[in-house]
């Protein structure tokens, strides 16, 4: 009965209620769309970064991440690979052996990062082959190199030329080798494009005199949402001499960027809800003022003040609920559209993104908790705001109220 009465009461002043609901719907729509867009962009950013290089989780020798030298590499064997592969949620694993080296061709010399990879596994993990600009991708048994085109240009090398690599091998041995260039890769990030070179893992191990060793096992996951559970499962499955890190631990600056941006979004949404709070509150205050006499009459007839206060709370909840559900209904097709057809930017802005190897697109994500959260927040706002008129009703003097 109370909820029916509350529902009918909000339609006493149709225009006022419609305006209030429209403002709530607009705010919910705006916050759902912006939050979905922000999450979509972040998910895309993470996907890009992870797919570009790190993988969601990496296994290293203990202390490698703090001091990235060959001395902190670890020996990979079938039991480690099996333990990783059998961990629930793991979809791919690729071993890497990284070392800094001098790359030389003729009289040109450049510092570079040499990465020993398992080409087929690496391609499944990071889609490395998609970066190929010229020549051919290398196979697992190949003895050739892939060179980033920026580095190749600086050394004036092309496909089929020979690259000389000099470095310090495992336990201080001298590492020297020359390798035919099978293909040139293009990376959006200038940093990578000017200094990366890939060798098949067994070639890199031989060159660095580090047989069976790797500096990292990069791991891809079935569901990135299970990141921490999978990380914990890997820790449990692997020897204590290995460290298991997730991408958030390896790239804290990205996490910080997301957090900062999220806080900015929360402030924006808070301001939005503050504005609609004024709208709801003014509606409730007007309603209280207009109906004080009626409330007095209801108390006189024998309705407890608590029930009247509850009725007013329900009226506020109805307003917020109808407004927020309308907002959700309006935002759903927009978010769906932005999921299917992300915002694409062009011009200089796009070039900046592309320089870092990202497509300049801003997709949204259809993530149910965003819709639920916004509805709950608006309902909570409606409920909290109704406490003031409810408190006024609890202090109501029926005689004074009916004298109005």
């Amino acid at each position, binding site marked *: 009965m109370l909820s029916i009465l509350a529902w009918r009461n909000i339609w006493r002043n149709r225009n006022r209620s419609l305006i209030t609901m429209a403002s709530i719907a607009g705010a919910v729509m705006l916050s759902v769309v912006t939050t979905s867009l922000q999450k979509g962009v972040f998910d895309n950013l993470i996907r890009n970064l992870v797919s570009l290089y790190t993988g969601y989780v990496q296994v290293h020798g203990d202390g490698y991440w703090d001091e990235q030298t060959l001395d902190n590499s670890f020996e990979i064997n079938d039991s480690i690979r099996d333990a990783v592969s059998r961990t629930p949620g793991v979809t791919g694993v690729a071993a890497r052996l990284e070392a800094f080296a001098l790359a030389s061709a003729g009289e040109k010399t450049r510092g570079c990062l040499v990465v020993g990879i398992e080409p087929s596994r690496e391609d499944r993990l990071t889609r490395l082959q998609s970066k190929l600009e010229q020549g051919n991708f290398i196979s697992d048994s190949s003895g050739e190199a892939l060179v980033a085109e920026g580095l190749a240009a600086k050394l004036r090398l092309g496909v089929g030329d020979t690259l000389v690599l000099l470095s310090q091998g495992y336990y201080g041995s001298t590492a020297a080798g020359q390798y035919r260039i099978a293909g040139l890769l293009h990376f959006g990030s200038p940093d990578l494009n000017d200094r990366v070179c890939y060798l098949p893992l067994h070639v890199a191990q031989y060159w660095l005199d580090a047989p069976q060793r790797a500096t990292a096992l990069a791991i891809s996951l079935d569901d990135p949402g299970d990141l921490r559970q999978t990380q914990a499962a890997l820790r449990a499955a692997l020897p204590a001499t290995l460290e298991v890190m997730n991408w958030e631990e390896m790239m804290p600056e990205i996490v910080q960027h997301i957090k900062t941006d999220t806080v900015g979004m929360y402030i924006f949404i808070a301001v939005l809800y503050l504005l609609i709070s004024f709208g709801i509150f003014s509606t409730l205050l007007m309603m209280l003022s207009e109906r004080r006499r009626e409330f007095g009459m209801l*108390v006189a*007839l024998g309705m407890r003040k608590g029930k009247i206060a509850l009725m007013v709370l329900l009226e506020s909840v109805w307003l917020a609920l109808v407004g927020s559900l309308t907002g959700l209904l309006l935002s759903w097709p927009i978010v769906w559209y932005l999921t299917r057809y992300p915002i694409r930017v062009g011009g200089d802005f796009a070039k900046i993104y592309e320089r870092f190897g990202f497509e300049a697109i801003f997709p949204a994500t259809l993530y149910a908790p965003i819709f639920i959260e916004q509805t709950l927040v608006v309902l909570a706002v409606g409920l909290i705001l109704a406490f003031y008129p409810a408190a006024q009703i609890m202090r109501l003097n029926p005689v004074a109220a009916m004298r109005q």
Partner: protein
Amino acid sequence: MENRTVIDAHNLSKVYNPDTIPVNAVNGVHLHLERGEFTALVGPSGSGKTTLLNMIGGLDQPTTGKVVINGTDITALPPNALIDFRLHNIGFVFQAFNLIPVLTARENIEFIMLLQKIPAQERSRRVEELLLAVGLPDKADARPAQLSGGQQQRVAVARALASKPQFILADEPTANLDSHSASTLLDIMEKLNTDEHMTFLFSTHDQRVIDRARRVITLVDGSIASDTAPAGLHHS
């Protein structure tokens, strides 16, 4: 022997602004009403009629004295118990009708019984009875705005009767009605009084109500100036 006393007010006084400029709205009123009375409380504006009615109805607390309804001292009841007591024992009819505008006539009458948690079937039966008693069976689904003033006041009477109260307090019930509507309303209330022995206490200026009352209590400056009753009833 059956106790016929419905309202027993002892030495009722009400002083407004006791700490600043005291106003004695009601001064030491003793009032005794028995079941089946049809009594008018009259007097000039400011004589304390509404204040007295409010205290008898438990809407206002007396400064001194007490009100005993059917053996219960309502001035000693805590707030929620007093509200519940009103719900089950006192029917109100107000000058300004005071129906709930978003409810139909049927729902307005039923509302009190909902608060009393009366089962749906019994509510429905009683609503039909009451609509018939006030002559509005065809207006059951009309909202107050669709009813005339007289019809609204008849719905208000039906609502007051819905809780099966001990008595009905009516504050200037005919003040906003034309003479035909007032006459119809008084006919209905008189019939309820005669047929069902429902006790009515009116505050009124309206001569039409005074003419129908079987007992007239006149208040002047917060005190009972006269209390006239037809033969067979003795009040002073």
